[in-house]
């Protein structure tokens, strides 16, 4: 499905969020408020996005941006679903009830970013040891073992 078509269908579903649908580098992305992210995901799944390709987060300073990559075989399309999470209280509803695929991916985000997924059945660290301190993919993570970049690089 062409990206403009996708945009129309999403806009028909969420007229108020239509301005938040952006097309960049040939990929559609919709940014929704955090409290609507779960219902939006459920609606998109209803629309035909049967696969949750990826869950990840980006450290945007004051906020984390949580990024879901949805993939659809029937629509032959993929799109992003994004939401901003306040850094002070990083809580996101878990998608495990919609896609079990979210299980490990959300554990990974929890492990590396410290974002808490509410409703996750088994939220533990997955890549790092259980006693690890801090969340390494946060930009303010410090570790004396990280070698600073040489100045001429």
């Amino acid at each position, binding site marked *: 499905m062409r990206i403009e078509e996708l945009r129309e269908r999403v806009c028909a579903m969420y007229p108020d969020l239509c301005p938040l649908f952006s097309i*960049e*580098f*040939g*990929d559609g*992305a919709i940014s929704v408020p955090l409290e609507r992210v779960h219902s939006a995901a459920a609606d998109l799944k209803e629309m035909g996005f*049967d*696969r*949750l*390709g*990826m869950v*990840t987060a*980006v*450290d945007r300073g004051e906020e984390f941006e949580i*990024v879901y*990559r949805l*993939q659809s*075989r029937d629509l*032959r399309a*993929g799109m*992003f679903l994004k939401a901003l999470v306040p850094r002070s209280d990083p809580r996101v509803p878990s998608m495990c009830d919609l*896609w*079990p*695929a979210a*299980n*490990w*991916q959300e554990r*990974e985000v929890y492990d*590396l970013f410290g974002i808490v997924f509410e409703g996750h059945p088994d939220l533990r*660290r*997955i*890549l*790092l*040891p259980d006693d690890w301190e801090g969340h*390494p*993919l946060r930009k303010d993570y410090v570790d004396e073992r990280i070698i600073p*970049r040489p100045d001429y690089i």
Partner: protein
Amino acid sequence: MVTEELTLNIGPSHPSTHGVCRLLVRLDGEIVTHVEPIIGHLHRGIEKMAENRTYLQVVPLTDRLDYVGSMYANWAYCRAVERLAGIRVPERAEYIRVIVCELQRIASHMMGIGSSAADTGATSAFLYAFAQRDLVIDLFEELCGARLTYNYVRPGGVSFDLPDGWVERCRAFTAQHPKAMLEIDGFFFGNAIARARLKGVGVLDPDAAVAWGVSGPSARGSGVDWDLRRDDPYSVYPRFDFDVPIGSNGDAFDRARVRLWECIESCRIIDQALDQLEPGPIMADGLPRLLAPRPGDAYDHIESARGSLGVYLVSDGSPRPYRMKVRSPAFCNLAVLPLIAVGHTLSDLLVILGSLDPVFGEVDR
């Protein structure tokens, strides 16, 4: 009679965990009642490391994600960078990428089939598959000087042009490979014991496969007809004529045999690509050595030997990626292991793990 469950830690250092995975298993006799993969033993923080490196410097890191299929991670990463920086890749480079990646698929599937065989104790079938893998690796060595971590696909093209005579040697390989595959098919997949070991073991429901995000041959073994090369075509794949083999039972046998038939199809693609290959540049024109794409984020995925391998890149306009995320198919495929392994015997557990063909460099990143 009162029985007690036996807790067994398989791994992280065990011949059949295909890397450094630890399986926490509870056994009732030989029957697995609970299994939990504990991963992260090979976690090197490549996504964190990438934030400290320039776009070109990340390429060698991607080699080390899926070390059985380095070309894929190279390519997926380069596609994301090219999308982000708006680089147009010359046609010859695209063809070379397709050729090396299909060769890589063969090499990787030989590992997958071979480990399926080795898990069932058929060591000879394992080595017959590895003999084929070695032929591919020889081609790669000639191409880029490395046998495992190639660092061959670069943003904008590929690092070397094909050496003299390579095309002929590649054709010689694809000419003999389908025959060798059919022999392995008859020798291993036709063997009564192997069939008894693999059939009906670790059945993955197609709906569950989609819901759990399983992709690649592992999902196609369950009958999920989904191949990015055909369904979300990228590069020059639309120009090739090939079939996507599908299983119907979703057991370990189907998953392994899908891999075998994919190798034969890969040979078809390689032959067509070699026919269509034309001289030309192999690197995009005017590519600065220090890439600094404009701010934004881009995602691109390719069909790797393990499934859809995606790379998500966020740029802040500086010469270094602000965030790199690898959507690794092996990670998602492995998550489904507890679902399909419980209720089988200990012997089957490792066959099921092998049939998902995880590579822990990619699972742990």
